[in-house]
Structures are given as C-alpha cells and as structure tokens.
C-alpha cells in the first residue's frame, strides 16, 4: 500500500500502463506541461500537445484507436466536449455497431468536471448523464485515488470508448491550477477524504460497471458519484447522530449503470436519495428512477441535483450545486414521508 493524491494516482496508473503497452498515447491541450511526469518519461512521441481544436483531435483519437493505438484524449474540461460532441455521438459510439461488430474503438476520453470553486457555468458542468445517454459510450467517475487509478487501467483495457471524468474538487493539481493558483486564502467545500488515499502497490483494474458500497446502512440509500459521495458521507454522519442508518452507494461508473447494486440497496432501505451534481432533468437521477420502476422496487425516492446554469457568485454556486443542507433536507423528507410506495 502507498498513499497518493487523486491526481497522482491517475497519472501513476496511466504511466504504468504506458510502460507495458506501447500503443497507449496521450494527447490534448497542454498535456506536455499538465502531464509533465508522463511527458518526461515518454516524450513528445507519446504525449502530444494539441492545438485548441477539440473536434479535430477527439475525432482523430477515434481514428487512431481504429488504426491500432489506444489514445487517451484529454478534453481539458467536459464543458468543452460540446465543440467535439460529434466525435463521441456519431463516431466513437457508433463505429462498432456500424461495422457489424468488426471494428472496435479502444479510446479513453479524459476530462475534468465539476464545480464549486468559482469558475462559472461554462467551466463547472458535470454532464455525465448527458454523455451516458449515448449508447456505445461508457462513462466513469471515480471518487478516490484507488478507484481513480484502477478505473483508468480498466478504461485502457475496455476495448470500447470510455469517458473518464476527473472531478476537479478531488484533484489537487486542477485545484492548484484553477482555484488556488498559489493562494492560501480561498475557502470552499472540499471532499478531503477523496483527495488522498491508499492505493495498491501494483495497479489492478477496477471493473467498469460496478458500484461500491461506501457505507452500509438500513434506513436510506444515498446514490452518488465523484465529489457528491463525500457530501453524502457528511450528511450520513449527521444522520447517524440522529439514529438514522444511511447506506451510501458510490456508482463509480455512470454508464453502464450497476442496476443490481442500486436495486439491492433500494430493496434493503426502501428509500433512495440520488445526489447528482449533473443537471437534474433527463439524466442520471431519472435513469435510476426508471430502473427502480422497471424492477418494481417498492421505495420512496428523492433527488438533489443541479437544476440550472451554475452561477459564479460563491453563495449562489453553493446553493445550485448539491450541498449538504439540501441533501440533509431531502433525506429528512424521505424519512418523514415514506410515501405510498414504501414497503409496509
């Protein structure tokens, strides 16, 4: 066991995979500097700084993957993926289907997501639900260093396109770059437990599509991913003091969704609270509701998500993102009013 920060873990797993597999390359804006350690090891043949043209280099990543490489294409922030959405929607996600299964696209799209540090609505989106709508894409959102490294390894071996999302609040290096920038007088909520942690001595893949029970409980299930997991933990501790036993499921993978784990937890507690930093409507929280319905799981359900464009001002931003107060309140509502769906 070693200890690493979240960002170190990703780069470390990537670096070790690159040692073993010559086909893996990294490309994206500023990657020689942002991934300096990997650049120092593999140089510009395998760590390629790109022009600011996400559509071209992400689509090129699809082509390179088809042609025998395993590209890790970095889209600096997931917000910018919108200028390259065609590469995912119409190419990465469809080549295998179009080719009758004959041609696979082993591509990893690495991108930073999430808000809470004051960058405003074009730079703090999460969009994992949005991307998960597209059949043929896997979407992973790790919440701690061990999962971060393990999911990177799994993504590199997945043999199909994976969007790998790195929550900025978990990543020391993004925070230093975008939020603190050398300052120590800036304060905002941070998921500290996820920012640094134990990692295995040798990286092993963390299976894509498998959630993890962070905390067992019997009265209520939180379902979350990324930084939200720690918001749920805070609220769960608070509830614990009040005698409520909350379970927390860290999805780790948004798509394919681990339906079994969700259903099992819902069957146990009878109350589901989805905490989702991505936009509320037509996304992850809805999909979870649908699978519960489809599986006829009797349970009460609430969701705490981002409902609108994320504002800049910190107080407004905090209100807009799922915060502990909103989560706590929703949990209390769920506990009070079990709803007619609740198992007797």
């Amino acid at each position, binding site marked *: 066991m070693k200890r690493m920060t979240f960002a170190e873990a990703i780069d470390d797993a990537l670096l070790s995979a690159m040692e073993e597999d010559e*086909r893996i*390359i990294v490309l994206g804006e500023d990657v020689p500097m942002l991934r300096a350690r990997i650049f120092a090891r593999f140089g510009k*043949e395998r760590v*390629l700084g*790109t*022009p600011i*043209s996400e*559509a*071209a*280099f*992400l*689509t*090129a*990543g*699809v*082509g*390179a*993957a*088809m*042609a*025998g*490489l395993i*590209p890790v294409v970095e889209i600096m922030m997931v917000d910018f993926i919108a200028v390259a959405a*065609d*590469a995912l929607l*119409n*190419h990465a996600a*469809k*080549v295998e*289907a*179009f*080719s*009758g*299964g*004959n*041609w696979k696209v082993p591509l990893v799209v690495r991108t930073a997501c999430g808000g809470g540090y004051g960058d405003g609505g074009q730079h703090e989106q999460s969009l994992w639900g949005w991307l998960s709508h597209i059949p043929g894409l896997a979407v992973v959102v790790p919440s701690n260093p061990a999962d971060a490294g393990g999911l990177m390894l799994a993504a590199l071996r997945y043999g199909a396109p994976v969007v790998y999302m790195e929550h900025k609040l978990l990543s020391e290096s993004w925070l230093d770059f975008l939020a603190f920038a050398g300052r120590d007088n800036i304060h905002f909520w941070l998921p500290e437990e996820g920012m640094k942690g134990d990692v295995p001595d040798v990286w092993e893949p963390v299976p894509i599509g498998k959630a993890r029970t962070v905390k067992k409980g019997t009265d209520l299930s939180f379902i979350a991913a990324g930084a939200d997991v720690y918001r749920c933990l805070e609220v769960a501790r608070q509830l614990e003091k009040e005698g409520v036993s909350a379970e927390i499921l860290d999805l780790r993978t948004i798509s394919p969704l681990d339906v079994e784990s969700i259903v099992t937890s819902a069957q146990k507690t009878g109350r589901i609270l989805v905490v989702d930093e991505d936009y509320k409507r037509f996304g992850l929280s809805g999909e979870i509701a649908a699978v519960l319905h489809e599986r006829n799981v009797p349970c009460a359900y609430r969701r705490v998500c981002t409902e609108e464009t994320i504002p800049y001002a910190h107080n407004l931003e905090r209100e807009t993102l799922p915060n502990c107060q909103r989560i706590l309140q929703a949990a209390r509502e769920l506990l009070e009013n079990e709803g007619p769906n609740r198992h007797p």
Partner: protein
Amino acid sequence: MMDLWHIYTHMFRSRLFEEAVARAWQAGRIMGEMHSSIGEEAIAAATVLQLKEGDAMLLDHRGTAPLVIRGVDMALLYREFLGHPDGLCGGKGGHMHLFSRPHLAASSGIVGATGPLAAGFALAAKRLRPGNVALAYFGDGAMNQGMLLESFNLAAAWKLPVLFICKDSHWAITTETEQVTGGNLIERVRGFGIPAEYAEGWDVERLWPLVQKALVHIRDGKGPFFIHATCVHLEGHFLGDPLIRVFRHPLKEARKLTSPLLAALSLKSSDSVSHRKERLEYLLKTIGKAAKQRREDDKDPVKRLRKKLLAENKNRLKEVEQQIRTEIDHIISQVERYEKEAKR
C-alpha cells in the same frame, strides 16, 4: 506506373457496379438515400490504385467507388445495400457507413469528419506503420466544416501523412458552393501550411501524376498534401435527386415543385410581385444549372477515358468491357439468387 487500361478496368467496373446498385435502388430494393460516386471514378482510381498495403481510406457518403477499386468484395457491398446480414457490415451500416477493417477503410455520413479521422489514422501509421498514409475524401461543401479545417491545421502542425482529397462537384445538395464560400480553396489550404494543387478530376491522366507526387511527398515524411479535383455527380446529389427529376420527369415532378412557388407568388402581401418573380427565377435558374451541369458528358471520367481507349484499340476495349460486364452480372445475380433462397 500509370497504365490507362488497368485504370479503365477499375473505373468501368465501379461504374457498372454502381449502375446495378442504382437499378436495385430504383426498384425499391434499397431503402433510404443513396449517394453514388458515379462521376468520381477518376479521382477514386487515381488515388486508390496508387495505395500500398497498410494505407488507410476515410470515405464520405460516396464510398462505393474507392471500396470497389480497393478490392472490397462487391457482393459484400451489394448485400450491405440490400440490408442483408451477410453484408459488409452485417446490414448495420448501409451505404453511408461502410467499414472494411482489413482494408483500413472507414466511412462517415457526417460532412467533414473524414479529415480528422484520417489525421488519427495517419498518427497511428506514423507510430505503427511508418511510410503508410491515410486518405481523406470529402466534397467542396465539406470545405466549410470546422472539424475539417481544424484537421488541416492538425495535420500540418504534426506533419501527418494525410492525403486530403477534395472532390469538388461545385454543389452541396441544392447549394452552389461558390455562393457560400469565401476565397479560393487552394489558397485556403495553403494558408494552413499545406501544399495544395488542382487537377480536373474527370481527367485521370492528369490526376495520376499529381497523386503520385503527393504520395511521394507524404511518404517521405514531409507532411500532408491537398488535392483539389473537380468532378460532376452525374446522378445529382443522390439517386432520385429532385433537381434532376424535374428535368427527367417534368410532367410528374415539376408541378410538385412549382405549385407552392406559384402559390407564394400570388400570396396577398405588401411585397411586390416583381420581387417575388425575381426570387422564383433565382430558384428556377439554380435548378436549371444543377441539372445542366450534371449532364455534361465530357466531364464523365469513364466516357472520357473510354473515348481515348476506343481510338487506341477498339477490340481490346470491347473485350475488357464484356469481361467486366459478365463479372458484375454474375455477382449481382448470385446475390439475388442467394437472397431469394434465404427468403424461402
């Protein structure tokens, strides 16, 4: 080495095959749109016949000719168009999404995507198959699509082995490209630092040496090259193109087109009738130009080369053509027989 007889064989085979496909489409046996590459055979032949093993082809919505000339089994193509499970892509792709992994040939129906896809194939070639190239085919209309423009820059900046081939038909569906395009295409591409040259795309004898020169340049590691080749889509934008139909079946089609226009002409409104007449004339002129331009025999690359070979050796020509005719008839009838049996 440019062998006109050899080239003609390929061009003629492709033409006959696409004519058979057109008949099947006309007979209602192929669903949806069908963009044929009839009229592009010289461009296809001059490029594809100079490729080596390991070179890649990125095809737009007119992929048939390059695939036939590259040697993809026409029976597989035909079955794919018919939507047969034994088609090239198991019937999943259709004519806009043709993929042949052994040939490193991939298609996209998204205008402009072949450029960045080719950049990705070229990037992989640089690492895995040095000396190999990637060809990107696209039309004049695609020259305004951002991701293609971005890919010019990417290929130039990274000195990628890409041959960009603009098949300039002067038209994008019903739009004269000139009317929506600023500057000059050759200058535009040179502005990205890519050598760019023009040839009449119906004249395989001029195209061939230009492609040869371009490929030498690229294989020498000097970076991308751009060829601007004019062509005429003799069947219009797609089979059943309404602008062509109006002229081929004036009685049946013209009324459909003109009656709403005439209605507009007689609408009550403050706008002067002469103004509206002018606009009507603009539309009719556009239709006329489209239809006329598409009937220019001297720009038919197959007829053009045929003329020359006919003068050279009439008997040999007849023989060559007869052989290909037999070949195509055989393929088509075999597929049809097979189809019928499958249905029983």
